[in-house]
């Protein structure tokens, strides 16, 4: 995390601190190939962070991930977990200590959800009671009914399978997790939900995670740090999402991040992070003249009717304000919340076909007005802004 240096709270069962991961000058060349798949890759992942490996197909990102649990052996170089080389470990034992989730999930169709989750604990020889307690705990953590434990993978929806896959990877509470496009095979809407759920989960469990994706948007959303790889497994840039968007190291990264990187920055900000306009609020019974004056003073040109608790009710035009006092009024409003991600807020405005959105706080009270203008101003201003001021990825900033 770029924002909070303190140790995160422990995971649900607990007990293992997240590990640090270090790749030192890793090179992987397959026999009979001219070019290496990975070339001199060095990376450090601090404990409790998500490191996303991203790049075009053939860049060796999956290979790099699979080196970590020795599914693939490096040609040269070393990998250290908490400072200890994995080369000294028995591969199968090493793997039992590293969570593993892949795009195709690979749930065992012949085992129930509970048995699937219990695979690694059983390999580790946990007693029956501890295993079932852990399974229960994980089902709760991923938001599946306890009754689902007896189901088979074939009876689950794609999203549920994906969650079970994540729960299975978490089962033995590993200090390190490898995730290879874990949300890749899911429709875009469910993927978004699963990503959010996973980030919330990660907020609680704080694992060190190596996350592979080819999707730069997912990388920006999920990563604390992003390693952009180019063909041949060469590290093009290793940086926080904000750095990557603001200062791409070279043309390749710039191309890969995309021409819309300014827009992508919106995914890193919340509504509360930018300067909002004051809302020209009026209440039922206010003098009409005062209300008209207030509306005229605001760049919006309308007044915002709020109820006694300060919750927004409706926009009032000059015609609505023609009477001596402000009268009750019904209307449609586009509202966004302070905690909303800026990109989503903009989407809401565009969808509502409005220029202005009423921003509410946690209690539903008016906190200001967000306008398309403000957002566009933010984009141009941030383009020249300094990196140091870039806040942490918004999704994780507030819990």
């Amino acid at each position, binding site marked *: 995390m770029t924002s909070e240096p303190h140790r995160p709270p422990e995971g649900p069962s607990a007990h293992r601190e997240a590990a640090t991961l270090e790749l030192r000058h890793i090179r992987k060349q397959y026999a009979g190939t001219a070019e290496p798949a990975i070339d001199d890759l060095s990376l450090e992942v601090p404990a409790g962070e998500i490191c996303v490996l991203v790049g075009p197909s053939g860049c060796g990102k999956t290979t790099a991930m699979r080196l970590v649990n020795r599914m693939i052996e490096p040609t040269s170089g070393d990998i250290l977990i908490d400072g200890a080389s994995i080369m000294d470990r028995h591969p199968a034992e090493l*793997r039992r200590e590293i969570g*593993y989730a892949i795009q195709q*999930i690979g749930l*065992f*169709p012949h085992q129930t959800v509970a048995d699937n989750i219990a695979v690694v604990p059983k390999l580790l020889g946990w007693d029956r009671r501890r295993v079932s307690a852990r399974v229960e705990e994980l089902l709760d953590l991923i938001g599946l009914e306890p009754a689902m434990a007896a189901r088979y993978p074939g009876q689950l929806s794609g999203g549920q399978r994906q969650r079970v896959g994540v729960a299975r990877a978490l089962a033995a509470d590993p200090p390190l997790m490898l995730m290879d496009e874990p949300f890749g095979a899911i429709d875009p809407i469910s993927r978004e939900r699963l990503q959010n759920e996973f980030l919330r989960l990660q907020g609680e469990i704080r694992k060190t995670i190596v996350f592979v994706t080819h999707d730069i948007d997912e990388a920006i959303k999920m990563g604390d740090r992003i390693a952009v790889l180019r063909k041949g497994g060469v590290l093009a840039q290793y940086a926080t999402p904000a750095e990557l968007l603001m200062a791409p190291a070279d043309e390749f990264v710039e191309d890969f991040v995309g021409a819309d990187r300014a827009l992508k920055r919106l995914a890193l900000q919340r509504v509360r992070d930018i300067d909002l306009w004051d809302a020209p609020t009026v209440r039922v019974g206010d003098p009409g003249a005062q209300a008209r004056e207030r509306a005229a003073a605001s760049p919006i040109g309308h007044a915002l009717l709020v109820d006694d608790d300060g919750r927004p009710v409706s926009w009032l035009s000059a015609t609505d304000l023609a009477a001596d006092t402000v009268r009750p009024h019904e209307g449609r409003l586009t509202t966004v919340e302070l905690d909303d991600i800026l990109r989503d807020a903009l989407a809401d405005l565009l969808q509502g076909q409005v220029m202005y959105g009423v921003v509410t706080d946690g209690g539903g009270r008016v906190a200001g007005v967000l306008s398309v203008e403000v957002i566009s101003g933010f984009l141009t201003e941030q383009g020249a802004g300094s990196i140091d001021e870039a806040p942490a990825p918004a999704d994780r900033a507030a819990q």
Partner: protein
Amino acid sequence: MTGPLVLAQVVIRDRSKDVGCVAKDGLCPAWIKDHIGDYMSPLLRHLELTVVSVVAGFLIAFALALVAHRRRWLVGPITGVTGVMYTIPSLALFAILLPVTGFGFVTGVVALTSYNLLVIFRNVIAGLDNVPEAALDAARGMGMTDRQRLWRVELPLAVPEIVAGVRVATTTTVGLAALAFVAGAGGLGQQIILDQNFKSNIVTASVLCILLAAALDLLILAGERIALPWRRVTE
């Protein structure tokens, strides 16, 4: 083993006093009803031949498949050899085996077993090959050893294909065992030959054959459904 068969022969052929249907070698329900008991001993022998051959064939083919699963180059040669065994006509194989294993049950079993090898071997291999790649990768990634992966993931997932092979092998063996009498191994085929012009006899024996095959097939099917709850819910 010739005891009961000779007895049966006597009973069946003793119909000199019969008139009508039986005398004309016809299909006589009344006669079948009266003599169905005579078929029980050959039926049991037929069952015995089938079960022993299928079990033996399964054990051998399964072991071969496990060996070949990790050493792929063996698949070709094993398929070739068991394929030749499968091709040799049963009557000929029974005859060829006579000088080696002699006249009797063993020859019948050896020949019938050799017919099961190809089908079961091929299905075990195919079942293991069809295990989803992702499940194997996950198994490895979670830290299963090769042996754990084989017994906990690959074989359980290959069971449907293996069972399909055993079912085919079983029904085939029931049909082929009808010729085991040539090897002196008895069975319902022996019963057919004892009175080969009497339609009641032929029909009774062959219907018993078909019923035996159907019963064994259903039994295996039921066993599979009990043993594999995950197949039941996903179908």
